[in-house]
């Protein structure tokens, strides 16, 4: 079956904005069951790559397949099997948490029962179950981030893209998100975490992709990257110096 084939295959993918090359002919392969950290400076092209792979944007040239689905010809399938937590998000301020989650879930054509079950499960994990009927405009930044995480997972995607997932969260919630990520590790799903904070991925990721100025500098396991260094941060700084 199509579906069980390999994970994400990217073939010379490029994206240009006006004169700026955000992604410069990227070729990559990510296997199923991996949790990958996508690391780079601000403006390195992380968000662009995530948006291209989740079907939100179209590439200037090149192709990619997600679990066998092509981002050009099977765009709706790609959107169905991927979940996206965008870096910047705006929620409907005048809806309650549940109404908002329901709104996004209905875009994925989920039935009422499934929405109810998934919402209860996720909101319990993220500890916002008691806020179900609270208006979004009254929430704090961290609470809003949790709502956005719920909407990105509501349709049980096989591939999840988290763009800066824990930047706004308190320490407790950070642990919860890491917990959720860990649970995914045991399934055959793919999680890609785009971040500029190395501490976010050191403990939870298997692989690391380092991206700079639209080009892939490194793609491999975290252990391989660390080599003899004690922390990821030192390895990263040394690596940048070498180049």
């Amino acid at each position, binding site marked *: 079956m199509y579906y069980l084939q390999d994970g994400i295959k990217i073939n010379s993918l490029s994206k240009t904005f006006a004169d700026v090359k955000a992604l410069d002919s990227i070729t990559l392969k990510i296997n199923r069951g991996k949790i990958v950290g996508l690391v780079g400076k601000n403006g390195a092209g992380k968000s662009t790559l995530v948006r291209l792979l989740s079907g939100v944007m179209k590439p200037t040239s090149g192709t990619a397949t997600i679990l066998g689905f092509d981002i050009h010809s099977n765009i*709706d399938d790609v959107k169905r099997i991927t979940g996206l937590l*965008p870096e910047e998000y705006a929620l*409907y301020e005048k809806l309650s948490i549940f109404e908002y989650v329901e*709104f996004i879930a209905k875009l994925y054509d989920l039935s009422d029962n499934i929405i109810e079950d998934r919402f209860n499960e996720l909101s319990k994990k993220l500890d916002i179950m008691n806020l179900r009927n609270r208006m979004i405009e009254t929430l704090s930044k961290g609470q809003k981030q949790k709502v956005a995480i719920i909407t990105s997972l509501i349709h049980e995607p096989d591939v999840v893209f988290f763009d800066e997932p824990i930047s706004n969260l308190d320490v407790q919630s950070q642990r919860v998100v890491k917990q959720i990520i860990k649970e995914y590790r045991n399934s055959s799903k793919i999680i890609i975490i785009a971040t500029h904070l190395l501490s976010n991925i050191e403990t939870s990721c298997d692989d690391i992709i380092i991206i700079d100025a639209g080009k892939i500098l490194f793609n491999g396991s975290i252990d391989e990257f660390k080599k003899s260094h004690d922390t990821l941060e030192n390895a990263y700084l040394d690596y940048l110096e070498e180049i």
Partner: protein
Amino acid sequence: MFFGYILRSLFDLLRGEIIIVQPPISIFYSILAMFSYFTLFAPLLSARVIYDNGAKSRREVALNTPVSGKDLLNGNLLSNLSFYLPFFGMIGTLVLSPFIGTGIFGPMATAIMLFTVLSLLIIIGLVTGSLISPVIFFLISKQKNDVSRAMVTLLVSAMMIISLPLLRFFLDNTTGDLGLITYLPFTIAASLMMYILYGTIVAINPITGLILMLVYIMVIFVNGWWRADSLYSLSDEISSIDNTEPGSKKSRTIDVLTSVIPKKYRHLSRSIIRASIRDVEHISRLSIGVAVTIFMIFAMSSRGLFRGTNTFPEEVELAVVIFSLVISSASVIFIDASSFTIQHRDMLTLIKSAPDGARKFIIAKIIQMLYFILPVFVTIIIVLGKTGFISEGNQLPLMVIMGITLIALICISLAIYIISPVDNQEDITNFINLLFFYVISFILATAPVIVVIIFAKITNYFILFYSLILLVISIISVFIAIKGLDEMDIETLNSRYSLKFMHVVKTLSLFFIMWTILPLFSLQYLLITSDVIGFLIISSLLSLSIPLVLWRYHIMNKPVFSFRKSDTAITLKGLFLMYTVAFIMYLIVIIIDLNSNTLFMSINADIYSKTSIFILVIVVLIIEEFIFRGFIFDFSENRLDGWEIIIFSSLLFSVTHFISLISLINAFVQGMILGYVRIKTGSLSPVILLHLVYNITVLLLIL
């Protein structure tokens, strides 16, 4: 057509009859009333932005510095002045120009007085609006629940409405006691300004007018200034936490009302409807829409400002109602669509990440807008029917027409805002969208109006025909919106079409300014010297050629005149083509037996000498080349494809040469040939030469 009309009336004016027939003075007043009303409204609408979330954080940053609330108020005022003063000045000058040259003071004095009073009016309106708008929003944000918030906006709108009967009252009783006015709220501004104008222009009582104006400004200014700090403070956020129970009465009502929506979109539409019901802005927009409708009907009908005149025939009244309804609903729809892309820009990412999310969301959004706007305007029509503004028989046809127009306007506005989305910072995009949308709204408003006036009623055939056309337009717009959202780059908010669209509208606005407004200002030279040819040459050279030459030379870094030997062949080829086309057109004219005046611009040779006509034609053609083949081509370079530029410039070229259909086609084809030569040679000299030889030939033939 509009540009053409203005230009033609300018020519008429120059043909010797300096004083044109004076339109009735009541029209003058109603135009001014409308004008001052919208000057007041502009800052009110822009102040809305003060209270959105983006502005909240900006306010936070500003207040963290030694900046005070009063400084913010001043800043807001200044930005309103700098943005709206030129805009309204432009429109006001255009609208009121037919009145120049009448009255007891002579054309020159009247013109200067009109300009002065107009500027004064704009400044008063903007200052008042800027100072009062935070007060209103302050009042709204202090309310605890939706109902009282809606009440405040309704009250504000109601005050705007009652300012009109007051205006009428003051026009009728100019010598009466006016002590009450100073105590009435700001909404009487329009009527007050009318009194001042009435007093100063017609010179019945300028002193009273002046004193009143000063008192009025004082009251408003002191009030706004005094409140400034609390207005901009950060403590006024709405703190009420609304718990939304799923089984509540409100929620159930919405469920019942929305159960007619097709199942596929029911849930999505329901969510957006819920969100917008809780948003006080939606409600305030609607009440402002109602206010604008009533205002317009009052300002234009024989039951309102025109009460002194004979009652209009039924069809004219109906036309007024249709026009008012379409324009006011367009305002409501436009504001709704514009705030939607400002606020939900980042949410579009999530919507696009769902399978087929663009289509689902756009359709749900259309349903939501319909749910809000349709019932309000149906109610207005019913009320108008009950109060006798429209007859029983016209009520249903009017509802059908309004319904289909609303659907079309909603679809078009969404398409515009998806193709060219608005960022908080981009006032110019919003302005261009507004301009484009209002042109469409005016077309949609005038079509039924013309039919009603000609046939005295709305015929069934017309309803069917019109509905079909609008339905097709709506469906196309929906497709454009969905495709646009699909293709939109979330990063830059652009899509392939949006850049081209923006460019075309931007060029059109600049063209409009060049072609009509700048020469209007040099009208004063004419009024002083009455030297027509000199006026045209001087004004055109001063206002157009010099800036364009400077622009091409310094900014585009291109030589102004250059002619290479290699350009000769293509120039000769162009000339041959132009002669051929003109000859074919001439043959067509002869075959269908038309006057040759329908092909070429006719010039009355009795008034002017041949030499002056030759000079005039040469000057005009050089300016035309600077605009059509110079400015438009250089400005569109890299933004449009070559053939797109040629068609675009030829379209404008032909519209300004409109005398008859055949002249339109002729000018279009000639424009294409000139454009082709311009693209091939990259220089202006060959096209100027071509145009010159061609025009001289034509002149020699017809003179």
